[in-house]
């Protein structure tokens, strides 16, 4: 706990550098990442990240220093060149974009590794700190780095706000943008440049290999919680910042743990959580909804079966055994038993000595389902001209979803028919 307070009070200048630096990186790259994600260009971030490595190495070889400004310029040049190449290859050959990205990524990265090995053999790699570019060096950020990061972050944010309307338009409907004369080439160039910039500063914290994750994952996570692009952007950068801090804190507690990978673990956890628990788009809420529907359908099917049996015996309130219901309709036994118990709780059935019978409310409900089923069959045969022996399956589903309003319209349209295509009587209340 003391550690926690000490860390987040940011008294220690080293901690301060790391935390602020990491937040700047993650928050600004997730803003840029939002557009990359929405334009379905997630892979592009990965390509840029890997392509900056040769630039960094070349800058070091040529300048002989590890001055971050030089390295950033080098990184920027090859990252950008790689994107231009991807674009060129896709436009001028039959190679598809994903293949072009893969091709570029491996060629640039391979070349970068070659240069890195060369530098290491020359004997000054660790001193230069170049190997940090592979996995990041967030824990070693210093004041000078912050100045550069801060400047880039402000630039990214400023340009994004300035071009927000156009970036959104291009991401949604680029052809329309083109027809109204929006300078899409120029704007795409700006977007590309922003992506490269975000990657270039980002890799210093998390490294080449994991960079794409902090570019795209925050946006992907945020998408689960909102339908508004502005909210999505803010939420994404909050997610990014939180995972940045979490990563920094974990590696502060356990210095053997590198910051970058922990940032990625944190953001991935947030994304995973969103994937499962988002109320509108999450897996869990979808499963719950499906389960509810399934329960309702089997309840209605049980009532319908009891109604059918009543119809046959001309006695709707006769007591019936589970076995006799199963004979009428092939339920799963647990499905049937649980359904009957739920129906009893809801007041649609009653039971005595494990014999079941409908209550008047239950009979009405079963009757309505039967009526909807038969009305729908009539509709299909009469209006959609589907053969009578093909309509049953369809009606089995529709009967559970017709609203009272549709029911009324159906009755009127068909003029209250008395029998369905199989000559069963349609019961009206």
């Amino acid at each position, binding site marked *: 706990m003391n550690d926690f307070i000490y860390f987040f009070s940011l008294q220690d200048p080293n901690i301060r550098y790391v935390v602020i630096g990491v937040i700047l990186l993650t928050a600004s790259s997730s803003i840029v990442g939002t557009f990359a994600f929405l334009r379905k260009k997630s892979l592009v971030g990965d390509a840029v990240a890997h392509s900056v490595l040769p630039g960094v190495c070349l800058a070091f070889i040529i300048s002989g220093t590890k001055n971050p400004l030089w390295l950033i310029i080098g990184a920027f040049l090859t990252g950008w060149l790689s994107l231009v190449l991807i674009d060129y290859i896709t436009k001028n050959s039959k190679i598809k974009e994903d293949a072009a990205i893969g091709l570029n990524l491996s060629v640039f990265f391979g070349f970068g590794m070659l240069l890195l090995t060369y530098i290491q053999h020359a004997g000054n790699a660790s001193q230069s700190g170049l190997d940090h570019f592979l996995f990041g060096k967030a824990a070693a950020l210093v004041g000078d780095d912050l100045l550069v990061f801060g400047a880039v972050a402000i630039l990214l944010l400023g340009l994004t706000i300035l071009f927000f309307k156009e970036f959104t338009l291009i991401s949604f*409907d680029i052809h329309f943008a083109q027809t109204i004369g929006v300078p899409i080439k120029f704007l795409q160039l700006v977007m590309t440049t922003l992506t490269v910039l975000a990657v270039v500063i980002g890799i210093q914290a998390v490294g080449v290999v994991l960079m794409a994750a902090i570019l795209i994952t925050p946006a992907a996570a945020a998408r689960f919680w909102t339908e508004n692009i502005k*909210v999505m952007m803010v939420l994404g950068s909050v997610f990014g910042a939180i995972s940045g801090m979490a990563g920094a804190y974990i590696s502060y507690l356990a210095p053997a743990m590198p910051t970058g990978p922990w940032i990625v673990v944190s953001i991935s956890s947030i994304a995973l959580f969103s994937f499962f628990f988002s109320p509108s788009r999450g897996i869990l809420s979808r499963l719950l909804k499906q389960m509810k529907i399934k329960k309702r359908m089997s309840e209605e099917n049980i009532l319908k079966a009891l109604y059918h049996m009543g119809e046959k015996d001309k006695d709707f309130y006769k007591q019936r055994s589970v076995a006799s219901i199963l004979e009428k309709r092939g339920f799963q036994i647990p499905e049937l038993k649980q359904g009957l118990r739920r129906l009893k709780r809801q007041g649609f059935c009653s039971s005595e000595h494990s014999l079941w019978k409908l209550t008047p409310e239950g009979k009405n409900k079963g009757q309505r389902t039967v009526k909807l089923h038969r009305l729908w069959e009539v509709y299909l045969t009469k209006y959609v001209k589907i053969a009578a022996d093909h309509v049953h399956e369809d009606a089995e589903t529709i009967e559970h979803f017709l609203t009272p309003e549709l029911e009324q319209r159906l009755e009127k349209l068909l003029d209250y028919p008395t029998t369905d295509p199989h000559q069963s009587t349609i019961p009206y209340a």
Partner: protein
Amino acid sequence: MVEKQPTPLIEIHDLTVAYDKKPVLWDVDFTLPEGKLIGIVGPNGAGKSTLIKAIMGLIPMQSGYVKLFGQGLDKVRDKISYVPQRESVDWDFPTSVLDVVLMGRYHKLGLFKRPRKADKEIAMDSLRKVGMEAFSKRQISKLSGGQQQRVFLARALAQQAELYFMDEPFAGVDAATEKAIVALLKDMVSKNKTVIVVHHDLQSVRKYFDWLLMLNTRLVANGPVDQVFTNEFLEETYGGKLTLLSEVTELMKKEELPNREKK
């Protein structure tokens, strides 16, 4: 047959467009008049969408040129509106109906500027015209196909253009809405706007359009509907699907086509 008009609104000269060197439009050459509701028909893959895209500068032409209002496209963009096929965008995008319609105002705003109150009113008005005003705040991912189509139409109306290109605006739209939209388009045409519509339902061609362009890689016919919507041209346009088509045309003949006289 190709009708030449004295003052063409649109002049397409010798247009050839190819994908991967395979021409999908071949030496297409025609002019279209102003203030008409113009249909483009042809089988799937005939190059209808390609023609519109080429006119709108979205795909390069191999040869030929396009003149609109007697000028090159760049000079007259403000007067032209394009409604793409609905499937051309991903509707699972985090934005609202009103925001999409407001995109129709961007060309008047220019870079950096936010939509003003007046733009919002125009957008709402356009939504009203397509019967979607109740949906203005709805997220676009929660629209049905026909509703998406109407949002695209509203965006085009918000552009307040002189010339409209619409690629299958009735796809997935219910009959009542289609009727309302056609009435809207006819009203626009009566105010001397020109509306060009890619259309698939041959039965309604006579009812909807004043002028017809029949396309199948090459231009088959171009002229007033009465003159070019004939069995002969239909067979030429639809080639392989002859049997089905002559059935449809037979049907239309039998129905005596009261719209023909109405015009």
